[in-house]
């Protein structure tokens, strides 16, 4: 089944076109990585797909439902970990988890116990979120996105600020979700996309430069690595102009 389908998805702010005419299809069970330099439109894309903001034009469908009209039906099925860590600062780790369980109306105890175990949160359980280090806050932010066992998960730069060990740990978590959850993630770490993603899309100035498996992208740009393909895609317009 198709998890996400967009047609001509566009978001304009006053004088910027953040996302331009984006058409994508993401199948259920995929881990889909969205790559692009700063300002390429990754976060804006996630905001539209996760029903936070409406597109200026075009449309997005989530599990066949319209991201604007059917957002009430879509929201319980998805989880979002925003680019900035999103936790309640004065609540403890445990209270944060219980609060989100309450928001989704899921059984607090079983949902949170599993996440505490999985993310190794037990050692910081009683600490207020605002006193945690950046890495721990990010782990908590991620755990919060999973409270409702979402069918579709949006991760905006999930490993930003994590150390190498924590990052690998998180990759393992993401992979273990693969069977049950469709994941759309953005990242600036090419090797993260390479090792996790089943498909990769590259955005350049709001436009889709290329999409496919890692091998397809390497082939398309005649590149030896995904990083080279990424650089070629990001420079895309300018290089053609020079040639």
């Amino acid at each position, binding site marked *: 089944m198709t998890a996400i389908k967009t047609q001509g998805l566009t978001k304009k702010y006053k004088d910027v076109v953040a996302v331009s005419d984006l058409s994508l299809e993401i199948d259920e069970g995929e881990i889909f990585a969205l790559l692009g330099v700063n300002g390429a439109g990754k976060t804006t894309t996630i905001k539209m797909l996760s029903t*936070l903001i409406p597109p200026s034009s075009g449309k997005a469908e989530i599990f066949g439902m319209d991201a604007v009209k059917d957002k009430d039906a879509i929201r319980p099925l998805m989880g979002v970990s*925003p680019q900035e860590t*999103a936790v*309640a600062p004065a609540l403890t780790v445990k209270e944060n988890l219980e*609060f*989100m369980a309450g*928001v989704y*109306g899921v059984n607090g105890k079983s949902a949170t116990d599993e996440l505490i175990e999985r993310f190794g949160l037990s050692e910081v359980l009683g600490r207020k979120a605002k006193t945690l280090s950046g890495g721990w806050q990010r782990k908590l932010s991620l755990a919060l*996105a999973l409270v409702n066992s979402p069918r579709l998960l949006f991760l905006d730069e999930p490993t930003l600020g994590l150390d190498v060990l924590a990052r690998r740990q998180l990759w393992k978590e993401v992979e273990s979700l693969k069977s049950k959850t469709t994941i759309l993630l953005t990242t600036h770490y090419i090797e993260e996309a390479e090792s996790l993603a089943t498909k990769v899309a590259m955005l350049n100035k709001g436009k889709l430069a290329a999409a496919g498996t890692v091998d397809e992208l390497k082939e398309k740009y005649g590149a030896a690595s995904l990083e080279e393909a990424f650089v070629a895609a990001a420079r895309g317009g300018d290089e053609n102009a020079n040639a």
Partner: protein
Amino acid sequence: MRTLNFAGRNIKELVRDPLSIIFSLALPLFLLFIFKQINIPSPSYALDNFTPGIIVFSFSFVSMFTAILIAKDRSTSFLTRLAVSPMKPHEYVSGYVLALLPPVCVQVVAVLALALILGLKPPWGVLLALPVALVISLPFIALGILFGSITNEKAASGVSSIVVQLVSFTSGMYFDRSLVGDGFAVVCEVLPFESALTLLKAALNLDLSVIEPRNIIVFCAYTVAFFVLSVVLFNKNMSKGK
């Protein structure tokens, strides 16, 4: 259920950063005590007049710390997360209101208790004044949500200090408005603060004859308007705090 869950979180957030609550509790108590000691020979400062005045005045600080709480929430991505959750627009505002009623209750009880100690008569009015005061606090909470939805954390206290000023000058708590001319009297009648104070005064003094129909109409109209605006503006701006 979701409303209570959100209210619980808001109470924790308030209580764990208690400076503003303590301030808004201490200042009215201090004023009530001091003005009683000075013993100004004007009926405005008699306990039966000044006590409800102080309570309404203290609600303007409720507006202020409500605005700060909400502006602060909007400045983090926490509300962005909630904005894509199944929470409904009205649940946010009711969750904030429910969280603020306990501190308001403490505030009112403390002021009434001090007034009794200082010799408030008749004492039975406090039993009616407490529930009436909770109702009177509603537009102040809504105003706080409204200001918190349109300002950032720094501006929130500045903008809400307008409420403090308006209450001081237009509620009639410090001086009788008949002393300051007809034009100003109209302003007082059109704004909700004088009506709020009149209603509370009537309850505390068990004298409903001082209430004019316009007091009830003005108070209710503003309360409804503030709530509608706060729901609309909060939902429009909840994930646009930065």
